[in-house]
């Protein structure tokens, strides 16, 4: 798992590369929390995620909730096919809000804070 951070003032792009699985869940969470703390506006690119399991999906939800709770702006972008497969099966697109189908904002069912 590689997490490459590109930043400019107040904004950052985190490129996730490799597996978003339980084996890396700890470090991913760590990284997510760091960038949410450090930046106002965050984009996480999932283009190079080769594999995702439930922990990965949970972390995406977590970061999304956390961003809302702390008033940060978070975008998940460029979902790779493996990511889409999981989000599709879990029908999470609506709750996450990001995927191309629905613009920024809350999912239909809304997240509880």
């Amino acid at each position, binding site marked *: 798992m590689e997490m490459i951070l590109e930043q400019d003032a107040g904004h950052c792009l985190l490129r996730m590369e490799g597996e978003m699985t339980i084996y890396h869940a700890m470090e991913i969470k760590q990284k997510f929390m760091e960038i949410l703390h450090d930046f106002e506006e965050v984009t996480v690119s999932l283009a190079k995620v080769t594999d995702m399991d*439930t*922990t990965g999906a*949970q972390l995406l939800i*977590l970061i999304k909730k956390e961003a809302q709770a702390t008033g940060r702006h978070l975008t998940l972008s460029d979902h790779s096919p493996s990511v889409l497969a999981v989000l599709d099966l879990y029908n999470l697109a609506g709750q996450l809000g990001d995927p191309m189908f629905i613009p920024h904002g809350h999912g239909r069912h809304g997240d509880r804070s």
Partner: protein
Amino acid sequence: MSLSDALPTFLAEARGLLEEMEESLRILKQSPADAEAINALFRAAHTIKGSAGLFGLEVIVAFTHHAESVLDRVRDGPLPMDSVLIALFMDCRDHIENLIDAVERDEPPDGATLDQGADLVARLAHYLGHGEPDADPSPGAGVAPLVLEDPVVNLGRNGGSEDDVWHLSLRFGPDVLRNGMDPLSFIHYLTTMGEIVHLFTLTDAIPPAAEMDPEQCYLGFEIRLRSGVDKARLEGVFDFVREDSQIRILPPGSRLEDFRKLMESLPEGVHRLGEILVGCGAITRRELDHVLDLQASQSTNPPLLGEALVREQCIQPEVVAVALDRQQEVRKRQTQDTRLLRVRADKLDLLIDQVGELVIATAGLRVQSKDTQDSVLMESIYEVARLVDEIRDSAMNLRMVEIGETFNRFRRVVRDVCKESGKDIELVIHGADTQLDKTVVERLSDPLTHLIRNAVDHGIESPEQRRARGKPDQGQVRLNAFHEAGCVLVEVSDDGGGLDRERILTKARKRGLIPEDKELDDDAVWRLIFEPGFSTAQEVSNLSGRGVGMDVVRRDIDALRGSVEIETRPGEGTTFRMRLPLSLAIIDGFLVRVAGNDYVVPLDTVLECLELPPIAEARGDNQLSLRGEILPLLRLAELFRLQGPRGRRRNVVVLHWAGRKAGLLVDELKGQLQAVIKPLGSLFSGLPGVSGSTILGSGEVALVLDVSGLMDLALRDERRGRNGSRTDDNGSRTHGLVQ
């Protein structure tokens, strides 16, 4: 309410299921792909697990669960059933039985049993890959969901219950991810069982970031699944996570009430969940409002007992349902056959005894009424006698049981012996529904065990020898039972090497059972193996061949008033044929009189009666020509050395037994009667030709003739006659018989 009251029912039911498992495994042995048998096996394991769960028998649940998981894979196809697996399941079945035995004894399973269990689990795990049995074999998103129903049917349908749409409410336990079980796999697997109409992922349980453990599972799912599978199978998907997860499955057509309970039992609460269920299309908005109203008005009601039970003991409602289904099924089957009533055997014995006395009393009444010449009285007495006959038959019938149960017990014997001796032997059972007296069946068990062990151990050759002789590797032992001429025949046959004439003779000579130079015909040679202390086995094995057994068989069968025959062909096999009376207590008899004494011959051995031509009597013939057939003639008066006055005429009763016929020379034929057999005292038990006594209507005692023994005497006489000068132990009574 105490569940422990129901424990005996559970135990009895579990034993029944274990028998079913054994039966299914037997079928699978013949045709490993038999889907019905695999299903039956699975169902049995599943039901045992389910009901064991009800009683909190964790060890059984845990173990059966492993077996069931492997079975599930077999059932669904990825794992083919083969002989190794069958043997493994057989061991599993035995292990479950051991566990159930322990429950019955009310003790925890001992160390050896637990070790055995652990060993089996390890062997089972081998078939489950790395503990992810439910994972889709082809991971990835490319698997198209299997659509079982035309989706059009669902169009416009919103809320309420739909055909074939299940509702699954899943709250995975926190540790499932760490245990290598990803909810993704489960949901993926569901897509292979049907079409997911709607899925909602509940993320409510994810805590704020600081407290969130990324390796813990926080997700819950509400799933609408359209599928034609059954409850048990759907339940089975979640077997591996059931313990620490909340899995609720509502079958298609579930009522609003079920959904209400579901909503109330889940952590999210009725409001939140209600919205989700409305979103899923599980219930309608109006229905949700109704539930909310209801809840508001009834919130003080305590939960139902069953519900509480389910909650407290963490039992899956579906498991309860399966257990209940099973109970109903059993009940239905019982009503279909006939309702069964368990009665103590001694009560039955007492009844039979009393009926016996009644028969004797009626016979006495009949004799006395004849003297009164009162036709009205006689008519009434005949009516009573007829009823007594019927009662006797019904009472005797009560004792009749099918021999099948006893037969099935030998599957185990054969299996165990096979394991020990490394032979592959199949036990084929015929005539399992043949009925005979319970006592006979019980007392048959020992001799049968001896014969079967003998057949497996000595009869059937080793696989190498068999191959050399051009026989299939798998040997066959057959158990057969059928009725013939008022008795029951039970056969034990094998397709082994047959009895070795020379070896038997050598052995018999060595043991001094026969003189060195004496020649014997085949039958006599075979009979030698029934002599005490005789064994032909070259080596003594754990099972048989210790020189005990065959003489015990002979003694047991004799004690049952039966007989044993041996039929053997070198290289082709041996058959032991036991001929047994249907019942021991009351028989239909034929009363004859010889030299002032009464004798009873069992009626079913009587073929016909005829008068002996005076010329034959005058010649003192020891043979009888019956329509061209030569039969040995037994002179009862001479045989028993009776001194009483002889009648004027001589009659012959033609008897048949075990395929042989003989004539019995008597004075007077007195007709049929019912004879209640009373055993003779031990002093007379060895009397040849007599098997018991009975009391006649007149109060006199008559001896019951042992036809089998008489036949032996007749045959011996005949041989002796045929062999002319040869003498043997009773050599003084040789008669010339012209052949």
